[in-house]
């Protein structure tokens, strides 16, 4: 059904507009004393529009996997819809005096407008959702002092979802290491003791204290920055770090635990920094977050036209 999402959404929005417009007209007409506003054809038209509206809403909820009483903005919509309906019945027929009817009509229109802002923002506070941002109390707001620092405290799931939303993915472990093996001059600097030492110096620094800003380190031979010296980074296949937690014998793969050959064997043991990164990644479960672990996204290079 997901492939029809845009169409269903259009139907839903069109029904919302028609429903609101019809209510606006009928409310105005009733309060101007015109009897045609409550005539049977108009009432049935209203039922038809509202049924279409709710059917589309149900379909959208299923497609999006977002449900009232689970997702706050939809809960708010449903509750406000109930209030809107009650106000609507008072505006059109239940209101005992004209003053009550007009007030209910105006209040219902206000509620209607607010529901639309809730729907557009996907936020329970609707158009007021921006206020916490203005006051900078949102937990997602990094604050001025962190504006240029890397984003940390993200799980592998969150990092993956972010990259997917950008039409990209997390880099794979070997891709990351391949690019990270470059110094500012050489593409493969793994045999350069000075370069290795420079990286180990970073690893030997305490993780406490503020993180450095993004873009503060020199670009390597590929023009990529911040691979070393800023944070640890998630990779797409972080779940593939098959290093047993208690496997002191490199060669004895536990064939009963691992289907296939065995765990990673490391050929360049002098490259201690790589070992540290493997240790870090293999100690992290996908749902874990850390104050020093972030991510970068990667995508395939499109060559030619």
């Amino acid at each position: 059904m997901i492939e029809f999402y845009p169409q269903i959404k259009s139907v839903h929005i069109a029904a919302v507009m028609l429903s609101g417009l019809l209510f606006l007209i009928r409310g105005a007409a009733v309060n101007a004393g015109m009897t045609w506003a409550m005539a049977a054809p108009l009432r049935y038209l209203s039922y038809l529009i509202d049924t279409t509206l709710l059917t589309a809403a149900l379909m959208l909820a299923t497609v999006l996997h977002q449900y009232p009483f689970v997702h706050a903005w939809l809960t708010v919509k449903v509750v406000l819809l109930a209030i809107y309906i009650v106000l609507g019945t008072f505006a059109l027929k239940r209101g005992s005096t004209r003053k009550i009817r007009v007030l209910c009509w105006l209040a219902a229109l206000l509620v209607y407008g607010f529901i639309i802002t809730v729907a557009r923002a996907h936020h329970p506070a609707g158009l007021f959702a921006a206020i916490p941002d203005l006051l900078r109390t949102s937990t997602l707001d990094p604050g001025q002092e962190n504006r240029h620092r890397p984003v940390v405290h993200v799980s592998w799931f969150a990092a993956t979802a972010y990259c997917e939303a950008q039409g990209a993915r997390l880099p794979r472990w070997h891709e990351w290491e391949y690019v990270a093996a470059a110094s500012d001059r050489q593409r493969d600097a793994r045999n350069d003791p000075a370069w290795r030492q420079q990286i180990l110096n970073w690893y030997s620094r305490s993780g406490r204290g503020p993180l450095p800003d993004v873009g503060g380190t020199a670009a390597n031979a590929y023009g990529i920055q911040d691979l070393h010296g800023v944070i640890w980074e998630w990779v797409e296949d972080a779940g593939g770090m098959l290093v047993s937690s208690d496997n002191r014998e490199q060669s004895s793969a536990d064939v009963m635990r691992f289907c296939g050959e065995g765990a990673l064997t490391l050929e360049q043991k002098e490259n201690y920094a790589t070992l540290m990164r493997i240790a870090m990644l293999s100690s992290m479960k996908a749902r874990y977050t850390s104050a020093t672990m972030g991510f970068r996204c990667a995508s395939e290079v499109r060559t030619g036209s």
Partner: protein
Amino acid sequence: MKRLLFALLLLATVVRADSAGSIYQLEAALADQSGVLRRMDVYRGHPVLVTMFYGSCPMACPLLIDTLRATERAAPPGERAQLRFLLISIDPERDTVANLNALGESRKLDLSRWTLARTDAASVRKIAAVLGIQYRKLPEGGYNHSSIVTLLDANGEITYRSSALGQADPELLTALRRTTQPTRVAR
């Protein structure tokens, strides 16, 4: 307006939400051994043993199916009738629908209660991450992967993880008993 209220009430009751820890929140599209598109919640409402495997695996994966079967046999009849099995391939390239179907037939699996499924590579990684299964593709085409059997309750919450291979894990059976008791009430 009464009809509108009624429709609203319907909206509130018809929609069903996944509990916070349910792996059924994962939006992965699976294809089963008949090529039918499924979601993670193929067996919602049942206790499910879920694991990941690859069809061309020589060693631990046949053993994995044997382990699931042993668990099935060891479960008391009432629990056995409710129990379902979901095996998701980590090798979508080679485990085509036809291959999964052939595997199901050669292993004589009761496909009304067993599902062999494949999905896209990105979903494989997410499902593996959710189930705590590690895997890595080997240069010659096989995979290293941890053999973990996860027991899900009727709503897709992880109840127990077992890495015992070859025989029915007694603790897994205990967890299954705990899971099946309240589900009759909950559903």
